[in-house]
């Protein structure tokens, strides 16, 4: 927990909070002494003047105490919120740098809970820490000292009983702490199931699985509630037990105190003061125990947050990055004996991939499902790191460039089109922040998206729902493609981007791409499963079982490559015509 605080909290402010707290506590501790003085000197000796003067003293001290409390609360609140804000920020930044593996390790739902719910937990506890957790030991110490001053003998009662209390509370805590940890995990689960139901509503309803989903949620819900009941029930024992023990302490105080008073070894006023201090010790103990109860839940949250923050960046930028040359350099992409393996895999996903393409050329990658196409693609912008070998962009080795520079050279269209909620324009600007409306319309035209995005039905201001769910699959892809080509880049990558388009649109789109000036000078990389999509590429790589089994033009491969021929045959019927049943591959 302290780890999180480091550098996210202004030390000066925390110091301020502590100082104010000290002031507040001192005033709280001073008052009973004044009261006992008033009793002994004022009331017992009928000194009214003394009572008045002490009274004003008390008023003044209380007022200072209130101001101090205010100061403390101000700092406590601001610092805890700041810490929460910075933690969230750091996590967000970190997550954007995550590799795919890291994402899968945590899962989207857990990351979600960690950036929101877990941060809320630590924020809440932070406030309490800066307020009460400091106050409790301070008060405890102060009250103990004061009570010792008033009567050393009676203080022995505390010395005997307090460890007992600590033992009992500690014992209860032992059971409660792990329960709180699991509560956060169960929150994850609720988050997950509820989230899935929200995102996959269409799937769930069309398969009539609403009841099943509700049951799933109910199970998680019940589980969470049960754990909560268990945890908090144990917690409920703490205060009553402390109260009972302290009542016995009070009884002992009065008993022994009376004895001592009768032996004239203790003044009556001191007894009263002592009892007040004993009350304060009780109070601070209760506060401490309450904090100790909620601390585990927060510390479990803190640990989860730190887990995210401590994920090692697997893709590390170079210490001395090479600056990008000017854009007169002809674009080129080269793979030099590249091998790749996922960290947990036994087999390599890519073996000995080598090729080179230049600006203006189109590289196509074809292969069956799972043959390593997307992996190859992800190596280019260094989203993953090769095990062996080197990837070069524009003649520069990609690990010598900063990620930022590298990404500025590449524009990728992912397999799954991701759109954000907002307007069409906002989504397009993602590709190029200073794009004009004309730029955007041009991109939409090339991407064959002007069919459904027209000036009449909203144009660039048309609304896009979260995830682009208000568009069909093919429309989403086209919008994503438009965004991709809007960005000026040396390498355009289309990862299976045309799969949701029918043949005609597919062909029109690729024609538009070929004739677009900006794209003409760049390298186009197309990953596809349809021969028709890749047929007119300059270089086709055929991937099968993680290896490049064929390299060449369509004509060459159709003539000599058996894998290519297999694919051809399955997609184009025996007669050589286009098989309608294979429209979606």
């Amino acid at each position, binding site marked *: 927990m302290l780890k999180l605080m480091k550098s996210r909290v202004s030390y000066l402010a925390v110091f301020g909070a502590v100082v104010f707290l000290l002031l507040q506590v001192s005033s709280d501790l001073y008052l009973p002494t004044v009261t006992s003085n008033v009793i002994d000197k004022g009331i017992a000796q009928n000194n009214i003047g003394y009572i008045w003067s002490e009274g004003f003293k008390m008023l003044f001290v209380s007022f200072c105490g209130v101001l101090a409390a205010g100061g403390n609360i101000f700092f406590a609140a601001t610092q805890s919120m700041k810490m929460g804000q910075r933690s*969230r920020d750091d996590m*967000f930044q970190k*997550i*954007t740098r995550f590799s795919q593996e890291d994402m899968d390790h945590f899962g*989207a739902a857990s*990351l*979600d*809970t960690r*950036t*929101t*719910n877990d941060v*809320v937990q630590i924020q809440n506890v932070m406030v309490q820490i800066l307020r009460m957790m400091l106050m409790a030991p301070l008060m405890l110490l102060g009250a103990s000292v004061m009570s010792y001053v008033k009567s050393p003998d009676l203080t022995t009662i505390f010395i005997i009983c307090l460890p007992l209390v600590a033992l009992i509370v500690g014992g209860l805590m032992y059971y409660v702490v792990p329960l709180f940890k699991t509560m956060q995990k169960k*929150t994850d689960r*609720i*988050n997950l199931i*509820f*989230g899935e*139901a*929200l*995102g996959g509503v269409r799937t769930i309803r069309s398969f009539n699985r609403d009841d099943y*989903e*509700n049951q799933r*949620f*109910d199970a998680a*819900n019940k589980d*969470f*509630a049960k754990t*909560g*009941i268990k945890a*908090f*029930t144990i917690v*409920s*024992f703490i*205060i*009553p*037990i402390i*109260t*009972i023990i302290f*009542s*016995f302490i*009070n*009884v002992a105080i*009065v*008993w022994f105190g*009376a*004895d001592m*008073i*009768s*032996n*004239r070894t203790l003044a*009556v006023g001191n*007894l*009263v003061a002592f*009892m007040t201090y004993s009350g304060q010790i009780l109070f601070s103990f209760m506060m401490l125990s309450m904090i100790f109860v909620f601390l585990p839940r927060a510390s479990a949250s803190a640990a989860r947050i730190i887990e995210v923050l401590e994920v090692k960046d697997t893709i590390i930028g170079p210490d001395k990055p090479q600056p990008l040359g000017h854009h007169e350099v002809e674009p080129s992409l080269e793979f030099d004996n590249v091998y790749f393996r996922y960290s947990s895999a036994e087999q390599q996903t890519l073996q000995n991939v080598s090729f080179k393409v230049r600006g203006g050329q189109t590289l196509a990658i074809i292969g069956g499902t799972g043959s390593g196409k997307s992996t190859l693609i992800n190596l280019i912008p260094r989203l993953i790191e090769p095990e062996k070998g080197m990837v070069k962009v524009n003649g520069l080795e990609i690990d010598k460039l900063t990620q930022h520079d590298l990404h500025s050279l590449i524009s990728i269209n992912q397999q799954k089109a991701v759109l954000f*909620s907002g307007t069409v324009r906002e989504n397009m600007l993602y590709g190029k922040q200073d794009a004009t409306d004309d730029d955007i319309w041009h991109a939409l035209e090339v991407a064959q998206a002007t069919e459904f995005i027209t000036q009449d039905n909203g144009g660039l201001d048309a609304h896009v*729902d*979260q*995830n682009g*769910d*208000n568009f069909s699959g093919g429309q989403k892809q086209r919008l994503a493609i438009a965004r991709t080509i809007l960005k000026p880049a040396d390498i355009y990558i289309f990862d299976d981007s045309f799969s949701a388009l029918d043949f005609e649109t597919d062909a029109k789109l690729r024609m538009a791409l070929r004739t677009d000036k900006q794209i003409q000078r760049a390298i186009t990389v197309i990953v596809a499963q349809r021969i028709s999509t890749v047929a007119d590429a300059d270089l086709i790589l055929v991937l099968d079982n993680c290896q490049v089994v064929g390299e060449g033009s369509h004509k060459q491969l159709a003539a000599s490559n058996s894998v290519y021929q297999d694919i051809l045959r399955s997609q184009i019927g025996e007669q050589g015509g286009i098989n309608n049943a294979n429209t979606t591959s």
Partner: protein
Amino acid sequence: MRTPPVRGPVTKPHDFWHTTRRLISYTRRWIPGIVLAILMAIGGVIMDIVSPKVLGSATTVVFDGVIAGMRKVNAGMTVRSFPIDFKKIVSILMIVVVLYVLSGIFQLVQQVVMTRISQSIVYQMRKDLKAKITRLPVSFYDGHSKGDILSRAVNDMDNINTMLQSSLTQLITSFFMFFGVLFMMLTISWKLTLLALLTLPLSILVVSFFAPKSQTFFRAQQHELGVLNGQVRVV
């Protein structure tokens, strides 16, 4: 009491009662348990209030002994020990012990019952929320941020839970505590009580000034949390 947040502009107090009434409708099933908790609270409060007075009477006995002793000292006699009626003190202390133990038991029962009730209520609310979501048309899903809804299901529910579990019990306890202590104070000295009550309007003023402000901030905070949640999910 905190109210569940509403999207859009900050709403007026009349919404407060509407939502409170809805919240109360959830508690209907648990009325017997809540009544038990309230009874326990009352019992606990009575114990808490009476015990200081009883304990105080023990100190009075001590004090009486001291005064009697002082009188003897002032009269010139040497006094080795003050005449304190220990027998009386013993009987008083025994009563105090019983009171404290009962108080502890009442508190425990109250807390355990409320824990169970609040968790169950929130469970029910989450269940109903899920069921309602399931019945809503798909257009609702498209029109609302997934993160925001999720935030309500998790974070806001958490808050309700805390409220029911601790704040509500505190409310009940404090309510009865107020009247109980007031009564006790009156039995000790109605003049002093009056004096103490003079500070009451001042406190009420302070609370009525700060509470609504903090309410609006809390609402805004929860709203922002929902927005934040939505943003995070997209990533």
